[in-house]
């Protein structure tokens, strides 16, 4: 790296400080270097929350739209605070009251937003791939805040960040994700994320929710919780969605709790300093017991705080990368 003083006046040297894509659609599309860049940037941005004035002017005059076709107070609030702490303006589109419910197509909605000079569209949608089709048609950046059963990249990034913060590194760690792997975009994004940074990924749950074909993606598949947790550094509990029971994927919720519910006793099967994580919102007493959720090994609250820093980093890097692209 060059040594250019404040007064250089020459073009800065090129080095990796840019995301290749204008969008963040999934972890699958990122390389390890880009992931590390996002985590490092989040490190510097996290402290803004502890400044006397919890705001920096970096994205002043930019507009971020939260376009949520599925309700999510947590993720939406996290993106909103992230944008506000970078001084961007934020508009939340409440789908049930928008013209979307009058039959406007996704693309028309997006084009309308872009005509209003929106810079970033943060989108959650029930259909896998919805943000991808949007991104292809727009000059604005699109951030996937969860698409169907496909990906939830910022969740995986904040999970990586939390693990790195606690252990110093992700490489060589073993993470066991427990629950409904099949329908979980969090599990899919985390598989890519942890694998790309050199961790081992295990999936565990009932066979109807953890198809053995998933091992083709690079994960080890377990049906026995004790085996799955033995040697694990991270116990990652997925939210159990009750409609799966109605859809016949689970014979009974009680049976699930008995086999796979995470309790302090079962956490002891993992490594002594193992972290307990959950993407929220938790069903306490179902996939995770009260005592497990509040145990000293639980970093669930840290995940929430880190989520804002990660989303700030993503918004900042997408915007600055796009600006330099345009130069």
């Amino acid at each position, binding site marked *: 790296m060059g040594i250019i003083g*404040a007064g250089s006046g020459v073009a*800065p040297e090129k080095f990796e400080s840019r995301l290749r894509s204008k969008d963040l659609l999934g972890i699958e599309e990122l390389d390890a270097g880009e992931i590390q860049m996002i985590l490092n940037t989040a490190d510097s*941005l996290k402290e803004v929350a502890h*400044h006397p004035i919890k705001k920096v002017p*970096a994205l002043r005059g930019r507009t971020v739209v939260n376009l949520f076709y599925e309700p999510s107070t947590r993720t939406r609030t996290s993106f909103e605070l992230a944008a506000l702490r970078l001084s961007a303006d934020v508009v939340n589109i409440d789908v049930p009251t928008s013209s979307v419910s009058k039959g406007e197509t996704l693309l028309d909605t997006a084009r309308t937003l872009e005509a209003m000079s929106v810079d970033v569209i943060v989108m959650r949608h029930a259909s896998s791939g919805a943000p991808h089709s949007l991104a292809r048609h727009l000059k604005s950046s699109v951030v996937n805040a969860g698409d169907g059963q496909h990906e939830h990249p910022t969740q995986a990034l904040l999970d990586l960040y939390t693990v790195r913060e606690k252990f110093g590194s992700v490489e060589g760690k073993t993470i066991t994700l427990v629950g409904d792997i099949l329908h979980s975009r969090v599990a899919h994004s985390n598989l890519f994320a942890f694998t790309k940074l050199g961790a081992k990924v295990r999936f565990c749950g009932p066979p109807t929710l953890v198809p053995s074909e998933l091992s083709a993606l690079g994960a080890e598949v377990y049906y026995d919780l004790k085996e799955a947790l033995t040697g694990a550094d991270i116990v990652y509990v997925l939210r159990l969605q009750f409609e799966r029971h109605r859809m016949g994927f689970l014979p009974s919720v009680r049976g699930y709790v008995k086999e796979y519910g995470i309790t302090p006793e079962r956490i002891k099967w993992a490594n002594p300093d193992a972290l307990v994580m959950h993407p929220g919102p938790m069903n306490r007493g179902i996939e995770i017991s009260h005592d497990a959720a509040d145990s000293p090994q639980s970093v669930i609250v840290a995940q929430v705080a880190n989520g804002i820093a990660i989303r700030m980093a993503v918004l900042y890097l997408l*915007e600055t990368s796009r600006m*330099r692209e345009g130069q």
Partner: protein
Amino acid sequence: MGAEKTRTTVVMDGEALGRAVTRIAHEIAEKNAGSLDDLIIVGIRARGDVLAKRIQVALNRRIEKQVPFGVLDITLYRDDVGSRAALPRSTDIPFSINGKIVVLIDDVLYTGRSVRAAMDALVDFGRPQGIQLVVLIDRGHRELPIKPDYVGKNIPTQPQANVKVELEETDGRDIVVVEEAA
């Protein structure tokens, strides 16, 4: 690095740099003789922080007090956010600056835009009684009405010239050079 021919002139060697640091520390002590307890030193990344550390050590020795030391990253406060290939780094000001005299330290003063950004960042941390500016090199060509209180050396430069400050801690040696197209 490009292959174009450049002429490099050494404007400050290690010895001169060391003398400048000592002299600036003495000047700070003199100018603030009545309010030494209110002094705070803040260096601007990257290299202003390294210089600030040295000035703090010299100042501590001179006034026999421990002057608080902080580091400021101005990436998020620049008026050209994103146009430089720099990722934000951490800011570390682990004390209140309310009512204090902040001695702000940078390596090179040029357009004044970095100092403008640094003052905006500082004000977000509190309301100091005053801000004083130290620069190792003032190379002229100001675009904003900013004037340093302490200067290591004034060096008239061409606008296209590049002033390079290298410091032992970050670059392995103490030297200031001006690079110009030959």
